């Protein structure tokens, strides 16, 4: 099950519906750079529920056809420049959402249910631009409109975690949405910082934070795999690098230089 990174990413094919996590859950950036190097195309990218550098990079590199998420931002480094430029140019299709709608749609998929109801949303222009979302009258209420969200079932969930064992069990700790993503997706591809000797499910303390290998299609080692973002509890973000990204990505030429320097040239170590 443990493969070289490029081989592990094989299930992520052109045009597939790819789910990726928010920044605090650990973002698989080494895998993202490998996908760009391979030249993946026409992704329907779903960021649960938001994204930062990862979506901006994939969009700028021309890998994304449709983006579905609640927000893309570089946080304290400002707006996500390639995302904003692509929206303004109309070069990607945007499906704006709100965070709990994406969580709920993944939960519907992990339960094998066709949809999930959600409060809020009525009167928002998000709903107006989502013909795939419906409003019904709550069958248990009386004149009580409520939104239904269709299940969101990714072809592939791509995640990063602190460790895995040789049986393919992956320790995700408290980042529970990684479990939701893996439960919902047809296939899950994981990169990890390191291998754990022994079986994670043998220790009840570790087992509670473990995603069973049953859900995992492919696994690769990627030490420091979230760089330049952080893997919370393990290492911080590389702020200097993120500032450089924000500066370069402000123009198409600068972004091309960034790709040349940090994505196509493989980093030492």
């Amino acid at each position, binding site marked *: 099950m443990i493969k070289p990174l490029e081989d592990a990413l094989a299930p992520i094919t052109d045009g597939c519906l790819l789910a990726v996590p928010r920044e*605090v859950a650990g973002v698989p950036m080494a895998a993202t750079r490998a996908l760009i190097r391979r030249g993946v195309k026409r992704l329907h990218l779903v960021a649960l529920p938001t994204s930062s550098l990862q979506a901006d990079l994939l969009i700028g590199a021309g890998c994304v056809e449709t983006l579905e998420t*609640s927000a893309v931002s570089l946080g304290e480094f400002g707006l996500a420049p390639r995302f904003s430029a692509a929206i303004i140019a109309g070069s990607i299709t945007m499906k704006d959402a709100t965070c*709990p709608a994406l969580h709920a749609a993944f939960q519907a998929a992990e339960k094998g249910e066709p949809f999930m109801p959600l409060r809020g949303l009525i*009167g928002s222009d998000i709903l107006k631009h989502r013909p795939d979302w419906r409003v019904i009258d709550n069958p248990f209420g009386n004149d009580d409109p409520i939104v239904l969200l269709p299940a969101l079932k990714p072809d592939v969930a791509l995640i990063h975690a602190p460790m895995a064992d040789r049986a393919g069990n992956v320790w995700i700790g408290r980042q529970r949405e*990684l479990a939701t993503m893996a439960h919902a997706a047809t296939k899950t591809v994981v990169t990890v910082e390191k291998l754990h000797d022994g079986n994670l499910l043998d220790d009840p303390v570790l087992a509670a934070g473990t995603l069973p290998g049953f859900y995992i299609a492919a696994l690769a080692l990627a030490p420091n795999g979230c760089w330049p973002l952080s893997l919370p509890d393990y290492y911080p973000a590389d702020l200097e690098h993120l500032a450089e990204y924000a500066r370069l990505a402000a123009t198409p030429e600068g972004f091309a230089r960034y790709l040349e320097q940090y994505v196509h040239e493989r980093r030492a170590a």
Partner: protein
Amino acid sequence: MSAVQPEATFRDEELLAEVIARIIGDVRHVAVGNASPIPATAALLARARGNGLPYVSLLQSRKHNFFTDGGRELFDCAGQGRIDVFFLSGGEIDGEANINLVSIGDYAHPKVRFPGSFGSAYLYYVVPKLILFRTEHSRRTLVPKVSFISAPGTSADNVYRPGGPIALVTNRCLFNFDRVRRRFSLASVHPGHNVEEIIEHTGFEFDRPDDVPTTIPPSQEALQLMRGVVALQLAEVYPQFAATVFGASSAHSR
């Protein structure tokens, strides 16, 4: 504060945090989203005064965040009424408290694109004390009508809505929001600012009493808490903010 206030011994950020802490009041759980150092200061100040209550969840924090069930737990909590106070902002906010976090211009061909709506299209409906916060008080941000409604200020009577906006805090003033009248009213003007200036820089109509009070400055007790225990807690998530605001101000004014 501005030059009009020769005796000012606090910074704008400290005043705004104190204003927000007063609005938070006596509640059980305050949650603070991303990129919100001043609301985070206010929540931690309220907790410091309340000897550990309210519970404070800073979503970007490891230490001041007790969620263990993934990103959905915040929203599940809010949906059940377990979050009393939350904060939202907007690229644009209009006079009916509609907020826009998406784009300016036609949605399909916008002139400006913001990050996106985050959790606003849910939390704005279900959190009882939703405080709007926007430091830039200008006709660019406070507009007659938003280009895109990420979340509406009010809803039709048959729409489930236990929560919604109660106030808007800016760098110039505090507005209260009346959900029945669907209008803001000017509650107080911060020291160094005046009503004419508020009218000039606000793009929407609002109510105001004949005599608008001046915002009460933060007390010495509040300043000491903010510059002490709160600044230390804040530094985990907002190191730069904690250093520039509280490091500098404590050196100048003690």
